């Protein structure tokens, strides 16, 4: 079996718990991401999603285990792994355009300023930012526009792996919807491998090829890998009509609402791999006498 493009092997993270002991966030986590795949990780707060993200970005060191990309173990941050942070992380003293140029210059140190400028403008245009607005400072932009700039900065660098850390978490629902579609637009047509954290189930289904589900911590596990069997291109309004949509959504809601808690805190020996779940219905779902009520709200 060939190794996936990005493989996370036996990743363990422990922190001192402040009372002399250690707190194990997750242990022996194993999963992989294929090249060009869009993978979303879903889980409750505190399950260690952000820790995994920081390790993948190289901003944090795991207690043990390795992350291999393209066959090489990663250590430290790198331009090959671009990050979009939840709080945008734009440099506030630079204009939107200069923030993107900052990234492009770092990536392509041999490019002429004119080429850097042209490349930066092109990627800002791809997220719908053109004209005077690109000369504004981040403080003069709305949250949605700031995150667009941040996405443009990340995509302009063509990283081998793009990490999105709850990129839309701070945005209102309507803005979130438009930017999700913009992200899909800029992503499709690239062979960009993306790993994203979110809390939002609908966002995950809209964007992902595959969703990794994490149980609650401590001893959190990446328990399941759910294939999103809805063909692309997807739009928010159309995917809800797809026969698989509610089945997948239901599965995710059940997991986050109930099973993530049931599976929490169980220390399991040996390497952990997510179990692959594939929900595919070819026709519209029959009204079934299912024990699981549909569309149940998550009460956590």
């Amino acid at each position: 079996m060939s190794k996936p493009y990005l493989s996370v092997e036996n990743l363990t993270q422990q922190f001192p718990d402040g009372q002399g002991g250690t707190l194990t966030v997750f242990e022996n986590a194993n999963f992989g991401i294929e090249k060009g795949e869009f993978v979303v990780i879903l889980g409750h707060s505190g399950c260690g999603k952000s820790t995994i993200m920081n390790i993948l970005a190289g901003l944090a060191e795991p207690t043990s285990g390795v992350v291999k990309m393209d066959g090489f173990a990663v250590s430290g941050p790198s331009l090959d792994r671009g990050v979009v942070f939840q709080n945008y992380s734009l440099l506030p003293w630079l204009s939107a355009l200069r923030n993107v140029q900052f990234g492009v210059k770092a990536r392509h140190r041999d490019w002429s300023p004119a080429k850097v400028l042209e490349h930066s403008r092109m990627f800002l245009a791809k997220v719908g930012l053109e004209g005077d607005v690109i000369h504004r400072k981040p403080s003069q932009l709305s949250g949605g526009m700031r995150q667009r700039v941040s996405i443009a900065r990340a995509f302009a660098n063509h990283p081998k792996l793009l990490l999105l850390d709850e990129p839309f978490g701070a945005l209102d629902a309507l803005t979130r919807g438009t930017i999700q579609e913009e992200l899909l637009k800029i992503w499709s047509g690239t062979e960009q491998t993306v790993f994203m954290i979110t809390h939002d189930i609908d966002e995950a289904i809209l964007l992902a090829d595959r969703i990794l589900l994490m149980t609650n911590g401590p001893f959190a596990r990446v328990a399941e890998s759910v294939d999103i069997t809805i063909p692309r291109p997807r739009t928010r309004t159309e995917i809800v009509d797809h026969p698989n949509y509610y089945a997948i959504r239901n599965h995710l809601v059940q997991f986050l609402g109930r099973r993530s808690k049931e599976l929490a805190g169980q220390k399991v020996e040996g390497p952990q791999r997510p179990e692959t779940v594939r929900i595919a219905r070819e026709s519209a779902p029959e009204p079934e006498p299912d024990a699981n009520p549909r569309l149940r709200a998550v009460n956590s």
Partner: protein
Amino acid sequence: MASQLSLNQRAAILSIVLLVVGLLIWEAAIPAQKAAEELTEYERLTGGGAPKAGIPPPSDVLAKAWEQLSNPFYDAGPNDKGIGIQIGYSLFRVLSGYFLAALVAIPLGFLIGMSPVAYRALNPFIQVLRPISPLAWMPLALFVIQDSQLSAIFVIFICSIWPMLLNTAFGVAGVRQDWVNVARTHELGHLKTAFTVILPAAAPTIVTGMRISIGIAWLVIVAAEMLVGGTGIGYYVWNEWNNLDLTSVIFSILMIGIVGMVLDAAFAALQRTIAYAE
């Protein structure tokens, strides 16, 4: 009518009114010298006719200012130089001491801000040296340096170093980790991170320290020049006091204030250009 004027215009009018009223009260409060012919013979014999040294009225000060400012750079020997020359000497001392201090304080502040070990190691020294009045260094400086000019510059150096050092360290240590992470994920080297991320992020705090420093330096130069003598606006004030020329004393006090204001305004302008909103 008043509502048609902007806030600034109304404030400017009020300022001018306050100035005029203040000057009139000052003028009126100075008792006029009695004219010589009104004196009795006895008064004339006992010297009552000689002009008494008193606080001069503002009209005299204005006349003096006009006289001095119309020829600010004359040089008629060691005790009689124009106000422009004197201020020039003071500014030269302040700026040379100040820039030497900046050359030391900003890189050192960077180091202290980036390294918790350096911060803790240097902190006791800073805390002991900082509260020392800069003039207390004067005897030691005169003894070691053996030159009053350089000693004055040293005093400026030592008084302006602390606000810059502490503000730089504080600003650098407080740079948001997110921005440092942006630099790290873009594989910027240490030097590049320092200049393209940490310096602009900490710049407003650093310039605030520089602005405090220039204010202190200008306060201290007057006292230092009174001690070392020879040239400078501080020496000028003291020299005119010895001449009992209070008109010149008041005029030079005003000039000290105006130059201080200009220095501060220059740094305020610098502060505005590098300020950013988060």
